[in-house]
Structures are given as C-alpha cells and as structure tokens.
C-alpha cells in the first residue's frame, strides 16, 4: 500500500484579531442592564395592573361567572410576579454598576461590630479598609440575617480577608456569587445570592472581591493607605 503524503510548506495563517465592539463593552452592558430592567418592567406593570383591574371587574359578577377567567388571571399574576422578581435582580445589578461610590474607609471594628470575630493576627482594631462600610454590612446581613455572623479575619498582603461562615445556598456553591446569579436568575433572584452579588459589584469597583466557598463567603477588602 502506498501512502502519499503531502507536506505543506506554507506558513499557517497569522491569527486574526478578534472583532471588537465599536463602543466599550461596559457601556453596552450598562445600557443593556438599563433597557432590560426598565423597559421590560414597563409592559410587565401594564399586564399586572390590567389583571388587577379585570379581577376587580370580575368581583362584581356572580361567583360562578368568572371561574376559568379568575384562574387564568391568577396564573398571569403569578407569572408576572416571577418575572418582576428576576427583573428586580437585574435592576439592582444595574444600579450597583452605575451608582456613585460613597466615601470609603472604615476600621474593622466598625465593619464587624455585633459579629463574632476570630482573628488569626491578634488585635486588628486599628486596621482600616478602603471600602464603603455599608456594602460589607450588606454582605454580612445576607450571610447571617439578624444573627451574629462568625467571621475569621486575616491579613493577606495589602488586603484584609474575611471568611464568613453560614452562607446557606442550595447545592455546593463555589466561585463568584455574581456569576451564580446571572447564570440562573430563576433560581437565585430574591435570595441572599442576589444581595451578595449586588454587593460584589460595588466591592469590585472599590478593589475588593467576594467568593463563595461552600457555606463560606470569602471577602477581600483593600487596606486603606
């Protein structure tokens, strides 16, 4: 059997640059977020309110008259509420991307007051971080609700690392809460994942980060100065 081999001496084509958007991707994302969260909510409101008005009208009829229509309206309202829940998550993300950043800077006792703090580094009472303290408080609220959260604190280079126990999410979550949320709005909208993802957006704009490691949230905060 003869096998003919053709060996090409031609050079492989040089890789072509990826096509790029004419406008910065951040602007596109912001515009898309706004369009989705605002423009879609407007007709959704119309449908919800129209369903309410029809229900009011039905209530003036004898109870047997509107049976199937009442059931259909109930289904319509359930669907609208579900869509509203998901649009609300996108609205909160959109606002977190656009909102002006407030004053940054807080000591760890201000951030973690009321929580059970376990320090691997001794007294960290004078340590200041360069973030909006409300964002960190929002994360701790999402983890622990009204209860004190258990927070392990350590220093890592020019960051403070908070490891917060008790983040209750279905499954075995790992990675970015923001990715978890946008990968399944249906599953996570309106849950603590949404609250943490929104805080993550603001925190990353300030040089911090949030990561989910099972039932722990690991929050990295840039040191001030």
């Amino acid at each position: 059997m003869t096998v003919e081999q053709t060996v090409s001496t031609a050079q492989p084509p040089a890789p072509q640059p990826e096509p790029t958007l004419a406008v910065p991707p951040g602007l596109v994302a912001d515009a898309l977020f706004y369009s989705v969260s605002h423009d879609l909510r407007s007709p959704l409101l119309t449908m919800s309110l129209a369903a309410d008005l029809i229900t009011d009208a039905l209530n003036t009829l004898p109870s047997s008259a509107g049976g199937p229509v009442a059931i259909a309206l109930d289904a319509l309202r359930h669907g609208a509420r579900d869509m509203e829940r998901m649009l609300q998550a996108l609205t909160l993300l959109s606002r977190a991307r656009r909102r002006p950043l407030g004053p940054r800077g807080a000591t760890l006792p201000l951030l973690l007051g009321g929580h059970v703090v376990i320090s691997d580094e001794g007294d960290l009472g004078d340590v200041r971080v360069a973030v909006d303290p409300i964002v960190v408080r929002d994360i701790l609220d999402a983890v622990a609700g009204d209860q004190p959260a258990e927070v392990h604190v350590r220093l890592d280079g020019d960051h403070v690392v908070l490891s917060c126990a008790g983040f209750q999410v279905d499954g075995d979550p790992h990675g970015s809460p923001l990715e978890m949320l946008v990968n399944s709005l249906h599953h996570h909208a309106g849950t603590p994942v949404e609250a943490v993802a929104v805080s993550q957006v603001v925190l990353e704009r300030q040089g911090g980060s949030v990561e989910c490691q099972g039932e722990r949230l690991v929050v990295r905060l840039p040191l001030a100065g």
Partner: protein
Amino acid sequence: MPVTHYRRPVVIVDDDVDHAVIARTVLASVAPDAPVTTLTDPRDLAARLAEAPRDAVVLIDRMLDLVESFPLIQRVSSERPDLRFVMLSAALSSEDAGRAIEAGAAGAAEKPGSISAWQTLLTRLLAEADGQAREERGAVA
C-alpha cells in the same frame, strides 16, 4: 378603597398610553372629584404644561419619547411654581429620585405593580399636595 375629597386638578404626563389610562382609572377611584388632564403626546410638552390648571399636581413619567424629563421639570417649575411635579417611573433609583427633587419636583416614586399599591401611592401624593396647600394658605394668613 381609600377615597379622598381631593379637588385640585391633576395632570398625568406619560407617553405610555396604557400607564396613563391606568393612572387615570385609579385616580377616578381614589379622588373622583379631581379634574384630570392626560397628556400622552410628548411633543410641545413645555408649552402645554405652561397652560396647566393653576395649582395642579403633575404626575410625570421619567422618560418621555426617549428623553429624560428632568430638564422639562426644571424649566416648567421655574415658570410655574404653583405646579407640584411628582416623577413616576417603572424603575427609579434613589439617585434618580434625588435628581428629580433637584430639578424641582416635590417627590418621586416607582410606579407600583398592583392596583392597591397605586391607590395607596396616589392617596398619599394627593394628601401631601393638600397638606402643602394648607401650609401655604396658613403662611399667607
């Protein structure tokens, strides 16, 4: 259903005809004696608002034909300080509400998602407008 004896004129400015009709329907249920004007055509709004009834409450949408209504509120309220603007929007952040107040609006709120919440909101807005009118009368007296 809350019913007020509110009689001051109300102007609804919304280029979404459905929202304007719903707002008007709810207003008729909470303030049946209030004269209501609806403006859904975004053209020449400044001129038409300049002719609005005296002391009217103006419920104005944030986006009118793809244009934000902050400058319109600013312009008209400087010429007609008797008008009480309230901005309504399907989605309104606290920053946007602050911009509305800076532009001269008396208030700003998200459009509610249920008729009962609309009734509550409009009843509150009309009561606030009435309270302001009483304060002004008191100050003059």
